[in-house]
């Protein structure tokens, strides 16, 4: 097995994580936390992982993962054995010291040290792939197709697309555009109104930072190559890099909760924020206003004790959307996404879609996801109940992408003035 791993090309590059920092790197890179990963428990149910990634249509080499795990587990077992024997020897030496025992002790210590030093690479390799194992899929997640949960008005037919949008938005490229007149007012005011709505519904307003360090996207299983990276001094030697995501992004709520210990009585926590979302995946040459880098978003965040309140929270979210979106008097539908559309950390996901006549398809203008305790465990966001450490279940969503809503309304001849 070792030989097979040795020969495979993956060994050319070492994968290092900012979330799970191995001992050798801890010398120069501060290990911010030790994620609660329950590796053995998750790997023991290999059939579930297999079914999960099949449903999600993910490409993950399970055979490789399994063999890496076996090797990792083997080394871990060996480490434990050596450690146990070392403890034994210390005890024996106290009772009856002997030269033989002393030599064995020295040898053991050396071997343990060498084993640790030499297994860091394997640990990195396995953890890198282990962190890609997706969250459990909620049983309400449809298997193959989007499921329409609610629909408001009928899908518009034969509507002439209003091209007024180009008068309201001066488009330079996917990163740079300027909104003018009512569009600029709408962009600011609607976002603030949505925050006010959620506040009335019991949410607390938050204003978040724009940057996150790598540990946060890693904990949320977001691919680091999909978010903006910022230049910093001595960046070559750092693991925990700085990224721009925007204060209206879900990741920027997570930095607040990393390592946070709370009381169970403080749950549920319900927060709402508004701000920018900078999406680096849209940073390429195109003319599509629906996929620009910078958008104003409203993002909510809910933490609860466990999965029991799932139905209630989803029901509430649908109600909030009805209250907010029906006033625009345009067709929209609320859907639940099939497993293949879920991100690694998502267990269930709702989307609110509006029909775009220019694109001839439904465009997502809002979403809301259930992450169970997947991210909490990785970031050690925890609470104590009866002296036991537990991990809150998290829900979060871009409950409105203001830019997408605005374009859709203008396209369909709505007068923005009515809403500002």
């Amino acid at each position, binding site marked *: 097995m070792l030989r097979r791993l040795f020969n495979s090309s993956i060994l050319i590059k070492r994968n290092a994580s900012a979330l799970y920092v191995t001992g050798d790197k801890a010398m120069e890179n501060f290990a911010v936390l030790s994620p609660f990963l329950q590796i053995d428990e998750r790997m023991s149910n290999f059939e579930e992982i297999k079914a999960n990634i099949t449903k999600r249509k993910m490409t993950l080499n399970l055979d490789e993962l399994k063999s890496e795990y076996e090797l990792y587990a083997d080394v871990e077992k060996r480490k434990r054995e050596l450690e146990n024997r070392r403890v034994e020897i210390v005890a024996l030496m106290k009772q009856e010291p002997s030269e033989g025992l002393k030599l064995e002790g020295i040898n053991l210590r050396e071997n343990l040290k060498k084993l640790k030093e030499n297994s860091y690479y394997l640990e990195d390799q396995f953890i890198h792939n282990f962190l890609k194992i997706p969250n459990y899929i909620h049983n309400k997640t449809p298997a193959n197709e989007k499921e329409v949960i609610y629909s408001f008005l009928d899908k518009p037919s034969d509507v002439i697309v209003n091209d007024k949008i180009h008068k309201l938005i001066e488009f330079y490229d996917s990163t740079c555009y300027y909104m003018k007149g009512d569009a600029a007012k709408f962009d600011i005011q609607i976002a603030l109104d949505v925050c006010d709505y959620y506040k009335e519904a019991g949410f607390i307003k938050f204003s978040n930072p724009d940057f996150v360090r790598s540990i946060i996207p890693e904990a949320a299983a977001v691919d680091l*190559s999909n978010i903006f990276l910022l230049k910093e001094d001595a960046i070559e030697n750092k693991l925990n890099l700085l990224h721009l995501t*925007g204060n209206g992004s879900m990741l920027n709520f997570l930095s607040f909760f990393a390592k946070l210990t709370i009381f169970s009585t403080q749950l549920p926590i319900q927060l709402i924020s508004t701000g920018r979302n900078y999406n680096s995946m849209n940073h390429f040459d195109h003319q599509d206003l629906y996929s620009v880098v910078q958008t104003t978003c409203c993002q909510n965040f809910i933490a609860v004790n466990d999965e029991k309140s799932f139905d209630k929270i989803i029901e509430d979210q649908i109600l909030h959307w009805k209250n907010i979106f029906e006033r625009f008097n345009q067709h929209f539908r609320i859907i639940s996404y099939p497993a293949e559309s879920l991100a690694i950390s998502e267990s269930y996901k709702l989307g609110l879609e509006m029909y775009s006549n220019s694109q001839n398809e439904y465009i997502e203008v809002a979403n809301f996801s259930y992450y169970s305790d997947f991210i909490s465990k990785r970031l050690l966001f925890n609470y104590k109940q009866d002296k036991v450490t537990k991990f809150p279940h998290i829900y979060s969503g871009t409950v409105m992408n203001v830019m997408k809503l605005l374009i859709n309304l203008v396209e369909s001849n709505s007068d923005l003035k009515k809403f500002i």
Partner: protein
Amino acid sequence: MNCIRQLRLLRTYNTSYYLRNKAASKCQDKIEERQHKFQLSEPILNEKYLLDPKNAAKISENSLMRKGIGDIYLVHEINNKLKDESLNPDERRDLESQLKNELKKIPNDTHPAVRNYGEEPKVVALFNKEPEFKHKVYEFSEICRKLNILRTDHLGNFAGHKSYYLMNDLAELEQALIRYTLSEILQHGFNLISVPDILPAEVIKSCGMQTDGDRTQVYRLLPSNLCLSGTSEMALAGYFAGSKLSQKELPIKVTAVSRCFRAETSGTTEERGIYRVHQFTKVEMFSVCSPAQSEDILNEFKEIEIALFNKLGLHFKLLDMPPHELGAPAYRKYDIETFMPGRKIWGEISSCSNCTDYQSRRLNITIDESAEFAHTVNGTACAIPRMLIAIIESFQNEKGFIEIPKVLQPYMKKDKIVKQKVIPELKLIKHAIKS
């Protein structure tokens, strides 16, 4: 121990982990060479005036007074060298490029009224009474800690250095300030415009900011040529770059609410907390106008700022800034400082500058009819973090509440900020959790 030997062999194949970082940003490579649509050009400086030896003494006196970096005598020296006809083409090109660089460093002229101010700004006026307290006066972060409305601690490893979360009523105060400021300034004929926060490095350079080097204040995205905007003035300048405006369109007055990113930092006690941060929201005013209008526009901006802070009830002073505080672009600049009783300092919360044609020459903004360069004026209507400090410190009362200024109350639907126990106090886990 066979296992160990094999593992040791494996280890020799380890390349260092920073390779990962290169891989992380690889997907951004493909877009780097793209051209942006900003109509940027080389600065069109007033060479006729600058290269006339008769003006050298006056220009030099101005540069010295402003303590800037420009040296007009060096400009003339290079210009004289260029008159030598025996220069080979390479030497000529080098000298021309040097001349261009040195010319760019010459600062704007200075308003006659401020030339004799010396080192100190002139206090033009004081507004509202200094707040009086019969109780111990607390500093912003102490008050916020008690009210549990701000978090700045233990965020460096998760959200970067000097990050902050505004929570609950403090986040509401931020939103109220944005709404209040906009509702006030939109009454003065401004057009609201939304601007990009991420800009090509060239746009930022055209505003006179360096984007490379160790001491840059500009954040750069890797490995692209994109930078984070330090103020919406940069995006607005880029927006108007290359414009030929009709006299009857002027003055154009725009306002923008944007996120501002600044790499600068500060370690002084006075600037502790969120006084100087890397990211914040700001409402900015900007005008492109004719040379005859710029002085009036500056006065208008100044009056708008005074009215905004006056209605909030802050104790502040208006300063007419002396030459050495103008930087290179401003012809005249007013600062507004408010008294922050908690930290017992006067802190700058706003300013407005008339840059005359300094920016428009660099951005090629002209007036169609007269072919003159337009003038630009800019001003801060509301920079959130310092406004929060000023309000929280000025309106604390003996019971530990914050009395919300009357003009903000309709937006917050309450009149005071009190402690609420809804957000968990900061308590972080210290040990690893065992499975």
